[in-house]
């Protein structure tokens, strides 16, 4: 039977080479699309799934207002909630993002931008496999550090790292362990240090300072509701109640007016794709984008399957006589159906093989697009491939097979293909579907093109031409005072100004494209504004050609500009609802600030997002702002740019 089917199948392929090739190619492209989407899906779904405690570890996600969730928590809540909740096994604070710093070993310097500051039980939460040392003895004290295999190799080469002393942020640290970083997680540190305890200690009184990521490990993941309830009570007692009292209101009135912080927990297993917060440490997976990718790939595959079905039924005329004869000779309907499904199965199999080749050849571009490192592997993937095969065979094969098997032998042998009306409707319907999907893709691509074009040509509100941006890390460790830090920046600024070609130097506490680093809410006449903090040095706004709509820029000539002068942007002004904002006094974080200028709105984050309300102060006005000083901006003469760049590098090397 199979031989007979194969013979006739091969005969038809030989006589319809182009037609077969088109069909196979169409299916291959459709399947390749789905394979791409599946690889992406598997990758995204695999984050933290290896973690044995993925359902018992929870991120404390705080709801600040109806739509805003923060992944950061205050320092005191961890021990407070642990004390009252028997359900909690332990808690672990860690820094919300990677630190970027230099590790020194003897004379060797290695830069690492994936440093995590955590507490000593970090490896209890993220149990990476240790190749030197052990998980239990990983971070016993503040002088301990654990390195990833890669970083250990960078620093020590092939020598054992265990017990060696290295220097980070001016501290002598002993390497207590080396771990393998081979699993997908939202936390992939190149090294982990135990500096968190000190930071917690420093801010243990500050209930309103949401600075650190807090993870809780419950004995039983189902107890999360009780923990959330208890946490809510603690928040109320320590934040809402005292604040209401300070405002002279009842707690109820206060909540009605200003809202309250609501506690929430998100299991580790779902953070990557489903967190409501902005994410912790590694950027979030984009679930929406993932769903769109999968959806579109299914649409493309459907399109190629419909195309296959259509051409197969159209081509059925060529098979009519054969089917008629087979039926007369004794083939049952199901035998005919099996035969044609067999043919579809072979075509699908070949298509899948070709699609694998397509994927293998084009995956580098796909990886570059997604910024991932996907490979064609894993048993899970092959199971999915088998599923794709069966689904494709079923969807592409069953309709043409039934259509053909319903040929009445007498009629087809007389050359009479009286097609039923419903068959015509079905085929017309499929044709319409094909054109609709094709039109959808064309229109969709055009819209996306226009959208990107708009983004590219949109006026962002600032001018970055000729501006150099130097990332300025805190290389002095935790102990440096804010005054010292600003002083050191000023020294660098003066040295830079002496380099030929440099016209202006200034600094800011934010990164273009990433947004502000901190937010402080302030009240003005019962209006609550979540102002993004934009610490600046004199001249920065002017350098970036950010315009003013009212008032003036900050200027060293005015003594109050390093004390109380404040600028806000147009968005903040709209929220404030003040007709004459200049000179208005604002109570900002317990400090009296005076608005001296209104800045025209400009994008600092993703240009697609709405511009948030912004608060501008000089670094000196708010001493702790200096800790945000992370970018030095330089305006240089384009004519001497090469030399200027070399000179700046020289200066940096010497320091």
């Amino acid at each position, binding site marked *: 039977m199979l031989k007979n089917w194969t013979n006739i199948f091969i005969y038809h392929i030989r006589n319809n080479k182009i037609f077969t090739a088109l069909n196979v190619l169409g299916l291959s492209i459709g399947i390749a699309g789905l394979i791409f989407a599946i690889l992406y899906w598997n990758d995204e779904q695999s984050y933290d799934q290896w973690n044995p405690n993925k359902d018992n570890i929870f991120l404390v996600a705080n709801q600040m207002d109806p739509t805003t969730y923060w992944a950061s928590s205050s320092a005191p809540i961890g021990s407070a909630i642990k004390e009252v909740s028997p359900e909690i096994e332990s808690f672990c604070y860690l820094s919300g993002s990677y630190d970027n710093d230099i590790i020194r070993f003897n004379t060797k310097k290695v830069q690492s931008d994936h440093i995590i500051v955590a507490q000593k039980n970090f490896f209890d939460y993220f149990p990476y496999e240790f190749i030197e040392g052990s998980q239990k003895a990983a971070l016993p004290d503040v002088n301990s550090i654990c390195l990833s295999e890669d970083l250990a190799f960078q620093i020590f080469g092939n020598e054992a790292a265990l017990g060696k002393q290295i220097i980070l942020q001016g501290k002598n640290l002993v390497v207590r362990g080396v771990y393998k970083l081979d699993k997908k997680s939202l936390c992939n540190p190149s090294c982990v240090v135990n500096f968190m305890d000190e930071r917690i200690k420093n801010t243990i009184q500050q209930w309103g300072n949401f600075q650190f990521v807090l993870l809780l490990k419950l004995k039983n993941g189902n107890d999360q509701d009780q923990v959330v309830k208890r946490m809510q009570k603690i928040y109320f007692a320590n934040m809402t109640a005292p604040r209401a009292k300070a405002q002279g209101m009842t707690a109820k009135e206060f909540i009605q007016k200003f809202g309250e912080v609501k506690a929430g927990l998100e299991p580790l297993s779902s953070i990557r794709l489903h967190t409501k917060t902005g994410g912790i440490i590694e950027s979030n997976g984009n679930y929406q984008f993932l769903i769109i990718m999968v959806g579109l790939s299914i649409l493309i595959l459907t399109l190629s399957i419909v195309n296959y079905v259509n051409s197969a039924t159209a081509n059925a005329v060529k098979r009519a*006589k054969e089917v008629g004869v087979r039926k007369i000779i004794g083939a*049952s309907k199901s035998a005919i159906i099996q035969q044609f499904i067999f043919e579809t199965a072979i075509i699908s199999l070949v298509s899948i093989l070709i699609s694998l080749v397509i994927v293998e050849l084009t995956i580098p571009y796909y990886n570059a697009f997604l910024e991932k490192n996907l490979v064609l592997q894993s048993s899970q993937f092959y199971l999915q491939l088998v599923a794709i095969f069966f689904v494709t065979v079923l969807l592409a094969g069953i309709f043409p097979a039934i259509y053909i098997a319903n040929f009445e032998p007498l009629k087809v042998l007389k050359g009479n293909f009286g097609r039923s009306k419903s068959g015509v409707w079905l085929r017309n319907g499929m044709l319409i579907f094909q054109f609709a999907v094709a039109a959808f893709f064309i229109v969709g691509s055009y819209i996306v093109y226009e959208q990107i074009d708009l983004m590219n040509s949109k006026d962002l509100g600032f001018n970055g031409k000729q501006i150099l941006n130097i990332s300025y890390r805190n290389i002095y460790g935790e102990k440096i005072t804010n005054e010292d830090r600003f002083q050191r920046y000023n020294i660098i600024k003066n040295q830079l100004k002496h380099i030929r070609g440099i016209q202006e130097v200034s600094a800011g506490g934010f990164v273009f494209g990433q947004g502000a680093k901190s937010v402080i809410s302030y009240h003005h006449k019962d209006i609550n504004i979540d102002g993004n903090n934009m610490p600046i040095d004199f001249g920065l706004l002017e350098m970036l050609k950010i315009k003013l709509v009212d008032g003036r820029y900050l200027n060293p000539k005015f003594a109050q500009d390093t004390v109380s002068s404040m600028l806000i942007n147009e968005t903040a002004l709209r929220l404030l609802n003040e007709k004459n904002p200049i000179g208005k006094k604002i109570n900002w974080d317990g400090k009296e600030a005076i608005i001296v200028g209104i800045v025209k709105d400009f994008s600092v984050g993703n240009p697609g997002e709405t511009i948030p309300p912004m608060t501008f102060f000089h670094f000196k006005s708010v001493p702790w702002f200096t800790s945000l000083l992370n970018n030095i901006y330089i305006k240089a003469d384009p004519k001497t740019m090469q030399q200027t760049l070399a000179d700046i590098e020289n200066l940096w090397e010497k320091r």
Partner: protein
Amino acid sequence: MIQINKLSKIFRTEEVETNALSEISLTINEGDFISIMGPSGSGKSTLLNIIGLLDSASGGSYQLLGQEMIGLKEKLKSKARKENIGFIFQNFNLIDELSVYDNIELPLIYNNVSPSERKKKVQDIAKILGIAHRLKHYPQQLSGGQQQRVAVARALINDPKIILADEPTGNLDSKNGNEVMELLTDLHASGSTILMVTHSDYDASFSQKTILMKDGIILSEKTNNRNVDVLVSSKN
């Protein structure tokens, strides 16, 4: 073997109703060689198709080997057909995309005969019909007479209880036509039951009995004498 009683077939279109067969009764016994004659539209092909289970009747009774066939499900009909009936057509109806061997083998495949037995049977029958050297060819590479031999081989391969032939010589020249008729006569002589539709008196004369049909009814039945030799020599 075949009992037909008051069998009728009505073709309905939106305007007209045509009685292709009106209450025909007919008995075919094992070993019979019967030919049906009549002008176009007399209903002879319709009758053959109903007997071959390719078409359904509008009323009456048709028993094949004692089993009622009218109203039978498609699946059972197809089973009865592949087990009991062999077809020979005017235009051969071979599958052009399959070799002679594959064509002859087809009924055996659908009857679940084992591969080794299939091979033997195909080769045997090809030898008998003189097409053993053509097994690897495709139908279009053969002459009309050879193609009809292949069709006969295919009809016989499964040892059917009855052979239905629809103008088997219609597309053949007289020499090849004669060969095919002689083949059928030989089959009859070896005990096969044959029902043949034909236009040709000459072909009909090979059979035992000729049924004449017109306008859906049987006009006459006559038993042929076996004086065929005279006619053969006259090369009608």
